[in-house]
C-alpha cells in the first residue's frame, strides 16, 4: 500500500517532448488562424 512520496510537476509529457509538442501546437494555431480568414 505504501507508495513513494512522489511529487509531480505539471505539465507532464508522455511519448513526446516539449519541443515536439510545441510544433504540433503551432499546427493547431495555424489552423485556428486560417479558420478566421
Amino acid at each position, binding site marked *: 500500500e505504501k507508495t513513494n512520496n512522489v511529487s509531480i510537476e505539471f*505539465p507532464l509529457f*508522455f*511519448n513526446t517532448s516539449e519541443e515536439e*509538442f510545441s510544433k504540433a501546437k503551432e499546427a493547431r494555431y495555424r489552423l485556428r488562424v486560417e479558420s478566421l480568414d
Partner: protein
Amino acid sequence: MTATVVEIGHLFLKTYYERMSKDPSKVSALYSNTAELTHINYQLDFKEDLITVPTVKITGKENISKFFTRNNKKVCDLKVKIDSCDIQSTGVSRSGVIILTTGELFWTGTPTYRFCQTFVLERIENNANALDIVNDIIRFIPEPSYEYQIQPSNS
C-alpha cells in the same frame, strides 16, 4: 489518507499513459471485467482540421482488449501532455479513486487536440493493493475561435 490517494492517482496516470505508447496490448489489463471505456473512435477517419475528435463507448474488458489490439498502431503513436489532475476518494468505504485530468494530445504529424478525461479506480476483491479501472471517459474540447465569429475589420 488524502496524500496517499493523490500519490496513487499520480502513479496510475504514469502507468496508464506510458503503457499506452509502449505496449497497448497490455492497457486492457488495467480494466475491470465490467469496465466502461469512452475513447477515441479510431474507426472514423477524422480529419486534422476537425474541431473535435469523435469518441465511442466500449463495455467489458474483453471488448476493451479488442479495441486496443485493433487500433494498436494509432494508440502507440499517441502523444500526450497532461496539464492538470484532480483526485478524490470514492466508492465503497472510499477505497477507490476518482481522477479528472485536462490536457492536449496529438499523433505524428497532426495538430494538438484539447481534452478532459475522468477515471474511476476500484480495489480488486482479493487483492487490496491493486486497483482496476472501472470507468474511463475522454471528451474533446473544441478550440475557441472555431466557435466565435470574428467581426470583419474596417480596413
